[in-house]
């Protein structure tokens, strides 16, 4: 079952889904498993597994540090795929690879897709790969039934939204504000209008990410978006007080 169908089916009985995020190997793969267990317990629906990269230029400070520490402690692409296999066999989430294009480029696009498929992933988010550079990868992804997740942003023109819309598959990732991951986003009309603009150009489910950090944000998005994507807020909870804080954070979201 593809991501789109998965989300649509869940939306029959949930008014909003949640996508979580871990940086593979940070603080350790074991900690990643703990985090995922907590997310599963608390009702998270999808997860991004970020493959660490030395130049994470679209990430904010917390993730930058996580990428760096993970690489330093010996995380490789091979280990990330092994870990993904483990996650997809052990958990019920839909799993997306998140990372930078050089990781894909170095192994070769076909090899990347094969291994992603083989490891049980359902798609990928590559923030530094614009659709113009992704023509091959996207068309090959169809062969493998993998979804490339496209990002739409507040600065994207109508014309370009239309073009992006045509490339969407699985779900679309609406970026709630300018900047990198990491800081708080104020939920307001601009988010609603972003969602509406995105919806005009695609009928895949719509996730909203960047700065979603609490129950109130979820409430705001409920009925507007399909998926709330949570990254930094959860990692911050982990940094502050490990598993306990992490569990408390996800419980406070009161996912069903």
């Amino acid at each position, binding site marked *: 079952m593809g991501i789109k169908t998965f989300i649509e089916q869940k939306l029959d009985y949930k008014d909003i889904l949640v996508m979580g995020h871990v940086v593979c190997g940070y603080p350790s793969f074991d900690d990643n498993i703990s985090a995922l267990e907590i997310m599963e317990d608390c009702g998270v629906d999808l997860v991004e597994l970020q493959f660490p990269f030395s130049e994470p230029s679209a990430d904010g400070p917390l993730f930058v540090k996580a990428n760096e520490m993970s690489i330093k402690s010996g995380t490789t692409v091979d280990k990330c795929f092994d870990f993904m296999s483990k996650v997809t066999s052990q958990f019920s989430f839909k799993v997306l690879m998140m990372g930078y294009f050089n990781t894909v480029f*170095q192994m070769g696009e076909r090899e990347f897709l094969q291994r992603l498929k083989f490891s049980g992933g359902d798609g990928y988010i590559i923030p530094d790969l614009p659709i113009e550079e992704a023509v091959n990868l996207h068309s090959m992804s169809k062969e493998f039934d993998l979804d490339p997740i496209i990002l739409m942003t507040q600065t994207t023109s109508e014309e370009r939204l239309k073009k992006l819309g045509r490339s969407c598959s699985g779900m679309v990732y609406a970026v709630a504000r300018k900047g990198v991951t990491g800081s708080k986003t104020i939920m307001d009309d601009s988010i609603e209008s972003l969602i509406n603009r995105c919806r005009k150009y695609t009928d895949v489910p719509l996730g909203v990410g960047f700065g979603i950090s609490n129950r109130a944000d979820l409430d705001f998005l409920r009925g507007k978006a399909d998926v709330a994507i949570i990254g930094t807020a959860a990692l911050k909870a982990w940094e502050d007080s490990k598993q306990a804080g992490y569990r408390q954070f996800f419980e406070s979201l009161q996912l069903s």
Partner: protein
Amino acid sequence: MDIFDFSEGREGYYGDFGGVFLPEILHGTIEELLQCFRDCKNDPNFWTEYESMLKSYSGRPTPITYLENLSKHLGGAQIYVKRDDLNHTGSHKVNNVIGQGLLCKRLGKKRVIAETGAGQHGFATATMAAKFGFDCRIYMGAVDVARQRPNVFWMENLGAEVISVTDGQQTLKDAVNECMRDWVTNMADTHYILGTACGPHPFPEMVSWFQSIIGKEARKQMLEQTGRLPDKVYACVGGGSNAMGIFQGFMDDERVELIGCEAGGKGIGSYMHSARLAYDDAKVGVAQGYKTYFLQNEDGNMSETHSVAAGLDYIGINPIFSHLWEQGKVRFEAATDEEVKEALKLVMKTEGLIPALETTHGFVTAIKEAPSLSKDKIILINQSGRGDKDIFTIADALDDSKWKSFITGKARDYDLEKN
């Protein structure tokens, strides 16, 4: 041959290299930049204004100096030097910075950001921002902040805010990442003044265009001063902007050989260098917005690089050079830290010139090759910057004991003041 005459659907590509690999959110910004750049490039008034500002503010055209003593000393080719060290702020970086400043004004933006390694580009940007009245923030790796304090001091006094970047290796590439992060946050009012011919399109083309003033002048001056074109042109290559600058003057001259000189650091096989093309350690990859040869591991994570010259200490090379190198249009060589120190001493003593450590890499290769060329051959070196601002690095490199006791004496004075 116009390398910027892109074929349909290959805009921003030089062979397999270049492109735009940026977050979607910057799409509009980079399009706007590209459009504005195209307008500037097509507007002859823009270039005129650009030239005239460089003339009145930075002292262009910079001269060509004949190095009679060094030529005699080496006993081979006649050596000429293009003196971009005489620019205001002390290097060729000002060419690019003034160009982008004018363009930023056209864009109607009021804030500029820039990465810097050695500090030359940050210094030039801070200077330009003061002159244009822009707000200015400079990102600089914490390691570089520590070792290049003089430049930080000037940047701050010129009114720029200098941010010390503590991620990654805390050097140039990390400062680039931070700029990208700032840019995706503030693109509405902010222009990112990239300092070299790297990064996403149109930066390689744009920076090369602004730096082409070096080569334009140099070609004309060589014809005037020597009656003919040089046989070989040497330039150091960090990102590749000064080299692109001078090489463009001779790109269509089949018989002029172009030689790019990279940082060989501790030498071949040491993995402590920044030679992307001269050595065999780099492979093609995508990072910091563009595709080129990068020094990286099998996973695509970037390697640690090293050079005595902070301005050459960088993982990637301008995509145009990756292409020209594969095409055999530009030869690449590397100079080691040790060779650089020796060449610097020689050039100071024989010619009274103090090239920057970056620049000296170009001298090393020229000095190696000149003796085996006949006396009627002419070679041209691009002196991209002056070294007198690098006194801390150069004094350390030359291990000058009097300098060290001067510094410890100064420190004692400061300690006494406090008490």
